């Protein structure tokens, strides 16, 4: 009942990144999810993004809650520390870890149950804190691991495998994040790796809290006709107002673009994203209009995907806390402890 060890065979033919690692070096243990689960595709996209971003695996930290989605942190970047916390409360664990060492690349993976029900408060408040972190909601409209109850993102009219019909309106994590002031809000689809990988890379490079709502169908409990979180539905009903190219710091901007159509934005780490507008009106830096657009399309039962909103100049957690550059967990004790002499001084006030 334990995992099968995954054979780690050297694949001499695989391309290497600047660290000399190949894609497989960014994989983890073998997935135990259902065959065809959207989450496995997201895992593959994360592997790809980390490989392409050339992240040293041990500088990555992985956080998750509980759920099928939350299990996936074990399935990528085996060389990274991971923390599979309790249900819905991963954001606080990630916040604490980020406080202790600001230099790690944090990836949080959560589900719609984990983030929008039990974890809604923690999600809202980690958004406010704005730690540098990529936060994925692998959104399938159900509780996969507990076998198919509706989640808060289930659409009205969704029918469960048992036959119940959901009558509660869905929470849209994108709208919520926009209302909560998130500085980077995107939506992807597990079935579209081409769009997802650059989003992940942009999120990881954004310098603050990057929320990506990834529509990730649950093939076991919510992929039937009539489900708006099914592969078929999402494929047909999504709209991307902007397309995104991700450009690593050291590469020249290769894409050719007409001015006025493309908005290049420089990210925290010097990388850039090029935003090609598909909808002429769409402005991904205007929160109010982004929200209005998402809401309008939602009324037409469409999912807006892509990079929905981005606030380039937002102070992140450590900037706001004015924390030292060095990781707090590495400060020498002598710098932290005022010593006996100062204690006497302090106590003078207490006479």
């Amino acid at each position, binding site marked *: 009942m334990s995992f099968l060890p995954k054979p780690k065979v050297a694949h001499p033919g695989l391309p290497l990144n600047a660290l000399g690692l190949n894609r497989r070096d960014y994989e983890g243990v073998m997935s135990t999810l259902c065959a065809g689960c959207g989450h496995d595709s997201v895992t593959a996209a994360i592997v790809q993004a980390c490989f392409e971003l050339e992240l040293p695996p041990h500088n990555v930290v992985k956080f998750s809650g509980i759920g099928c989605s939350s299990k996936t942190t074990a399935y990528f970047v085996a060389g990274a520390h991971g923390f599979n916390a309790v249900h819905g409360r991963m954001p606080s664990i990630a916040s604490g870890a980020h406080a*202790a060492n600001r230099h790690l690349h944090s990836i949080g993976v959560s589900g719609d149950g984990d983030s929008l029900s039990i974890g809604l408060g923690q999600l809202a408040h980690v958004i406010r804190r704005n730690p540098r972190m990529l936060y994925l909601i692998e959104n399938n409209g159900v509780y996969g691991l507990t076998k198919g109850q509706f989640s808060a993102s289930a659409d009205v009219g969704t029918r469960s495998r048992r036959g119940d019909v959901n009558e509660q309106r869905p929470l849209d994590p994108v709208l919520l994040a926009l209302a909560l002031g998130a500085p980077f809000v995107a939506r992807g689809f597990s079935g579209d790796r081409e769009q997802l990988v650059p989003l992940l890379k942009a999120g990881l490079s954004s310098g603050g809290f990057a929320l990506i709502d990834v529509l990730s169908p649950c093939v076991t409990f919510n992929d039937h006709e009539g489900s708006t979180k099914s592969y078929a539905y999402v494929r047909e009903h999504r709209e991307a107002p902007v397309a995104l190219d991700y450009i690593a710091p050291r590469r020249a901007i290769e894409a050719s673009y007409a001015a006025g159509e493309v908005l290049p934005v420089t990210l925290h780490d010097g990388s850039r994203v090029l935003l090609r507008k598909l909808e002429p009106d769409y402005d991904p830096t205007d929160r109010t209009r982004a929200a209005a657009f998402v809401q309008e399309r939602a009324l037409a039962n469409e999912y807006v995907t892509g990079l929905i909103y981005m606030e380039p100049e937002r102070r992140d957690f450590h900037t706001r806390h004015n924390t030292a550059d060095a990781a*707090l967990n590495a400060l020498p004790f002598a710098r932290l402890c005022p010593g006996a002499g100062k204690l006497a001084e302090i106590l003078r006030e207490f006479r």
Partner: protein
Amino acid sequence: MPGSSAAPARVNDFTIRFANVNGSGSASANSLILKAICRMGVPVVGKNFFPSNIQGLPAWYEIRVTRAGWRARGASVDLLVAMNAETYARDLADVAPGGWLVYDSSWPQELLHSRADVQALGVPLAELCTEHFEGGRTRTLMKNVMYAGVLAALVDLDPAVLRGLLDESFARQQRLRDTNVRALETGYQWARAHWSCPLPLRVERMEATRGQVLIDGNTAAALGCLYAGATVGAWYPITPSTSLMDAFRGFCAQYRVDPATGRHDYVILQAEDELAAIGIVIGAAWNGARAFTPTSGPGISLMQEFLGLAYYAEVPAVIFDVQRVGPSTGMPTRTQQCDLLACAWASHGDTRHVLLFPDSPAECFTMAVQAFDLAERLQTPVFVLSDLDIGMNDWLTPELTWDDGYRPDRGKLLSAEQVAALTTKFHRYLDPDGDGIPYRTLPGVSPKAAYFTRGSGHNRLGAYTEDSAEYQDVMDRLARKFRTAATLVPPALSDGQGASLGLVSFGSCDAPVREALAELRAGGLAIDYLRVRAFPFGTEVEEFLAAHAALFVVEQNRDAQLRSLLTLATAVDKRRLFSILHYDGLPMRARCIVDGVRAVLAEGVQA
């Protein structure tokens, strides 16, 4: 007239109670008096009784002047300063026969009742304030300072000491200082002009407070966090723990900011609730920072799930539970020792936690430091269980000291070099040393050090498991680790030996217990004392219990929670444990223990 009382002079041994209205500024006047007595070299005890609101309700403050240096609340009220007309009747009723009462004679006469055995001294405070000061706010505030002046005359405080204190407080606010001094003098002079001062209750200089400070437990604990090298503090505000983080923030602002860059060597996070606060602490400690959260009962309840995770996944965490009256919201501004069971077994499943029991602000300081060392050594949450009485009252405390040779015990945390030197793959939950404690690593330190932390079933290698034997293996090691904990925590301290009667107590009970023991022993009773300082219990606890035929267990809760822990975790026969319980929310007095012991003995317990 004062002085003419028939009562014998009681020098440096009496209790003053101030009856105030909260939010009216009386706190600084009361603390002025406390400090002045202390500076005159006379031991004092200050206890604050305040309501759970912000303004307008009755509040009391007691100062015990105690030549003998007792640390508990005084036995009775000898002098009452009645500043709250609304509570006047019950305040008067509380004065000990032969005592005194100072009241504002500007009040309408019909308010006042009198007692033949209490001498009431009216001073027209409101009138004097109107006469001497302008503006409602100043008049209200100065009334307090003025009664301090009156009191100074009545109990013979040195006016120079009082003025000195005002000079220090208002060093940079000359006008304010002058106003305060004027109020003080006015009260002082008025009293001396109208009464023959001092009363037989009076303060006489001693040398008994040299090298001591007046400090509250929360401030001392914050200092401990500072000195232990804590860098991450997360909390959600809750009475009576809030001042711990306030103090930590203050100290950090002073000692942890790079003067050149203004950058901080710490992060303090006000979380959205206690679940998040403990989550942040666990995340930070998992990632190698010393991290803590101060809270109180309701916070402990909310942290249960995460505490179970930290136990099982073996992550250090330091929790200060400044206990208040439970259950539920209870009485947030009253004191109790009622969270022992909630902390010892926090969370579902088979969990056990390490608890430390400071008896005073001094131990809040030392135990804060120990808590971080133990949490990292044992890789588990460690609770410091103080209470409102210790945490929020100023206690006369021997000056805290620091050994510059101290180095944090990071426990079995592998450095980058140690990881590099590993010849085999690193595994998280092995027990190579046989003490139940595994080795851990931090993210980012080495490509060879990664492991996966989870609250779900895992085996000794750190891999996910649903295998019975692998699961049980880890659980058995955790039990072994808890036995190791018993050898590492601060040992219980005992006083006396060879008596067949013993008394066991802990925490803030220590002050009244010591006073009670003195009285009992003076009365000829042979009785030994053990102050428990941690759970799990060390062998010294076992030995003390075994060595005494009958044992009194003194604690401040209804359900005998310490007695429960002793019953379960030692070999003692519970029939030998006699509970003395106090749980009305006010700090315990020695009397309660003396009476309790005598009542049990009167029932014919074998001594």
